[in-house]
């Protein structure tokens, strides 16, 4: 049925099931209702990806006509030290912020899941920072991380510790951004909390009868039951963090010494500051391939640690 061509109702092709008039009418409505998305998909997603691939083989400043240069952009990329630096920075940031973020948000969710008094108040407090994002928050954190007048270094000064220049010393700049990302851990915390609350209590009761202590219950019930949610958050979180750059753009603009030049920022600069659309598209395509590879790897590794209910193999 999936291959059936739209043919007149009166002469259905042999061997293919006939679609009733009602079904045909419904199908037409279906396509009509999803039409906005189909147009958007062809224009802004599929069309854009294909166009991007084509542009990556050109030299194009967006002001003059594009010139075909073959694979020149890709060979330039292989020799480009900044490309490796930016990719490394993004992976560093992605691994750091998603890894630590998962641990922090999961811990927060576990804490809140213990029937604590004032749970909704605590949830609000942890969730709020993840809702306010963007430039206002970036400016706030420039202030918090300020070497001399910042909140963190004043706190450290109480204990006689002289804090580093968080955003101005190359070795501290990226850890600072990762630390800052933890402030928004509340977003995934809410997802984990919803997941924790849907773990059936009878599983915990069964584990208790078998003599499991708190840690054993955590590792044998909570983690397996939550693993699909964790996997989802890892994938989406990693994709989001590897391409995000607005915060970095505002806070360090890639500095000091390219220590925070993340991949998205490099693409932005190449395309919209230097107007090298061809090279920027090549960079973007490499990012797409890397993201697909990482996602595939995550799914493959997931077979060994993610548990799906109703999965016979487990």
């Amino acid at each position: 049925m999936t291959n059936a061509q739209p043919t007149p109702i009166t002469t259905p092709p042999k061997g293919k099931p006939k679609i009733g008039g009602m079904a045909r009418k419904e199908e037409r409505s279906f396509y009509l209702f999803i039409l906005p998305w189909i147009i958007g998909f062809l224009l802004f997603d599929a069309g854009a990806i294909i166009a991007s691939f084509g542009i990556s083989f050109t030299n194009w400043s967006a002001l003059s006509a594009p010139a075909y240069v073959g694979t020149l952009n890709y060979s330039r990329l292989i020799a480009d030290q900044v490309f490796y630096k930016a990719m490394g920075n993004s992976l560093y940031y992605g691994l750091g912020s998603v890894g630590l973020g998962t641990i922090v948000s999961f811990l927060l969710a576990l804490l809140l899941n213990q029937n604590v008094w004032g749970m909704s108040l605590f949830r609000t407090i942890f969730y709020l920072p993840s809702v306010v994002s963007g430039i206002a928050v970036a400016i706030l954190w420039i202030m918090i991380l300020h070497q001399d007048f910042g909140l963190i270094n004043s706190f450290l000064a109480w204990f006689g510790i002289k804090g580093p220049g968080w955003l101005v010393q190359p070795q501290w700049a990226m850890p600072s951004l990762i630390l800052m990302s933890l402030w928004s851990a509340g977003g995934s915390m809410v997802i984990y909390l919803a997941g924790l609350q849907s773990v059936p209590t009878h599983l915990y009761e069964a584990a208790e009868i078998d003599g499991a202590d708190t840690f054993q219950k955590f590792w044998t019930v909570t983690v397996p039951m939550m693993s699909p949610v964790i996997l989802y958050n890892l994938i989406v979180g990693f994709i989001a963090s590897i391409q995000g750059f607005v915060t970095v753009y505002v806070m360090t603009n890639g500095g000091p010494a390219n220590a925070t030049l993340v991949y998205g920022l490099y693409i932005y600069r190449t395309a919209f500051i230097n107007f090298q659309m061809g090279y920027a598209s090549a960079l973007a395509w490499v990012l797409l391939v890397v993201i697909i590879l990482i996602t595939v790897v995550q799914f493959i590794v997931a077979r060994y640690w993610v548990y799906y209910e109703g999965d016979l193999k487990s």
Partner: protein
Amino acid sequence: MQTPMVYPKRQLGIRGRAIATKVITYVLLLGLSISFILPFLWMVSTSLKLSQDVFTYPPSFFPNSFEWTNYPKGWRVLPFNTFLINSLIVTLSNVAGNVLSCSLVAFGFARLHGRGRNFLFLLLLATLMIPREVTIIPRFLMFSAAGLTNTLWPLVLPAWFGYAFFIFLLRQFFMGIPIDLDHSARIDGANNWQILTQIILPLSQPALASVAIFAFIGNWSNLLDPLIYLRSTELYTLALGLNLFRGQNFTQFNLLMAVSIITLIPVLLMFFFSQKLFVQGVSLTGMGGR
């Protein structure tokens, strides 16, 4: 000699251990809460300080005097009223466009049958994985070719063609509405449009509100698109205006903080009045808002 050490621990018993767990939990919760709130308090405190008090060593947490005039003063440094209007135009049309287009598409996927429906839905979800950097350059060139750069159109138009996350959220919600309602309406002669507008949408107010809120917040704080498309200052949105302000007056942190706080107010209000909807949206899809 080791056994006596173990006894007191055992004597703590189940109840004692439960109390100990509670105490540790609350200590952790309180400590973490304070560290999550402090940045906000610091922001407010800085916004009320005199310029010279911002850079004192050691910094004081509390302002010496409450300079409420920092707020109007900061607001007047740049044409923030214009930026506010631009932000409202962009954000509200994005909310309207997303709610309308995503409702239509979600209804199609939730209620109507057609060949390739499952495949198209998978394709829709797959678009969530596409990095923005890949599409942003062709999009820019497209809007550029259409002569629409340095207008608000590139920030407004895409919302009218649906957004995968919102479509997914609404579709999940629509699927939870009993299909019998559709059937009885159909028997009464209602068409798809009437079923959507008179039965499904009125029953889906929480989900629609979630979409509206996520769309509002996402666009309100969006810096990337304004940064790429807007050149003239009179078209700047609040986020872009704040970026300009930061570039020009990077030492006046008190004014910068004051304006930052003003730009956050709509988001904060929305959050406090509709926190339930946020959480519902999250648990319905298992995804965050971005």
